[in-house]
């Protein structure tokens, strides 16, 4: 004999309310975390893309994805590590897109005032060369370099964030800086001789 079991409407409503309450709690917790992790995502994206508009889009997308996964990533360290990785990957994908690259190059062609004390760093030409050199770095080296360049990030924090031994972080940072120096040395000489 077959039986048809109908769910009680009151029970379904209770389930929905409980779910909504849990969702609201999750959202509150995420918004608290957002104050801390929002800038991190934006900086990683900005470091890869060197474009504010694109970096905003990527950071927003990464944070939305993080929100969807937040139930599994409530632990602070794990959440930050996941967010850095997903932002970095999204930013790389965006940077590799030919269309976006064209837009970015158009933007970079315009002189952008930069609040920096270094004359050379303010040079648009050097920034372009630096951007190309960074693009040629391997993602592993690039991520370590970007995270280490962020204010308030020590090597220990980078190590914890990426789940790597401190020796590996130091080694990657050294290799990355050396490769950049080798690629940009001629440009510094040219700039200095002018």
């Amino acid at each position, binding site marked *: 004999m077959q039986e048809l079991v109908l769910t009680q409407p009151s029970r379904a409503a209770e389930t*929905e309310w409980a779910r909504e309450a849990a969702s609201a709690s999750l*959202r509150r917790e995420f*918004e608290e975390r957002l104050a801390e992790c*929002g800038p991190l995502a934006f900086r990683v994206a900005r470091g890869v893309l060197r474009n504010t508009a694109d970096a905003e889009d990527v950071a927003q997308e990464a944070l939305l994805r993080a929100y969807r996964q937040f139930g599994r990533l409530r632990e602070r360290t794990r959440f930050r590590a996941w967010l850095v990785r997903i932002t970095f990957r999204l930013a790389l994908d965006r940077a590799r897109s030919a269309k976006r690259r064209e837009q970015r190059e158009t933007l970079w062609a315009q002189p952008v005032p930069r*609040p920096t004390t270094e004359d050379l760093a303010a040079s648009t030409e050097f920034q372009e060369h630096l951007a190309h050199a960074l693009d040629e770095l391997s993602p592993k080296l690039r991520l370590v370099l970007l995270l280490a360049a962020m204010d308030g990030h020590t090597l220990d924090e980078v190590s914890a964030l990426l789940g790597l031994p401190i020796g590996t972080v130091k080694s990657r940072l050294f290799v990355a800086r050396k490769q950049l*120096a080798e690629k940009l040395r001629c440009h510094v000489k040219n700039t200095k001789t002018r």
Partner: protein
Amino acid sequence: MPCEKYQDALTDLAAKGAEPAGDVRAHLDSCVACGSYMEQERFLLKSIDSGIRSDVNAALPAAVVQRLQARLAQESAFERRVLRHWIFAGAGAAFVVAVLVLLIARPVGRFRSHAKLEPTLAASVKPSELAEGPSISAAVSNPRALIAIAKTTRQKSAEALPVISSSNLHEPEVLVPSDEREALARFVNGLHGQPEVAEAFLAHAPRQSEPSFPLPLIQIAHLEIPALEPSDDRDHPASEK
């Protein structure tokens, strides 16, 4: 050239951000070219760091946070909508499944009730079995064929299931006119395992001469009808005119 030997070491030191020590320090103090190279490397790496930091340490625009919060609100609303849709879709799917189950179960139930009325015919007399021996239509017209059916079913009744199973439902139904169906089923059921009964039942009865009762013929008396006599005209009012 001795300076070339030190240049790689000076680059490494600049990349590490470390200060020269030992013989490298001593060479730097004595060699102006290597001192200049070291300064150049430090300047280069400082420029690189400065260029990276200017990108990496940009402040997060407040508009991004606001947009993100708006998106989160949309996301929550969307989740709720999706959840409701799933609930309705689930209820609808359950209803459709229930209706389908009822529709599918109904003809089976009808067949089962029919099979209860005619268990022997449905369960033990299969079309394939009947095909081996005399056919039902032949049996109806020929009583000897019925005896053959009874013998066949007696042999196979041990193998046949008494209760109709789902596999029997896939067998095509034996087409017998509805008015003959019940009678045939009962008859075959009665013959089941007892062909001698069938033989006795179908044996030709001896012809008996029917007793005659002679009836006397009906005697009808002869009726005489006398002729009408002429009557007086004054008795009739029409003749007065």
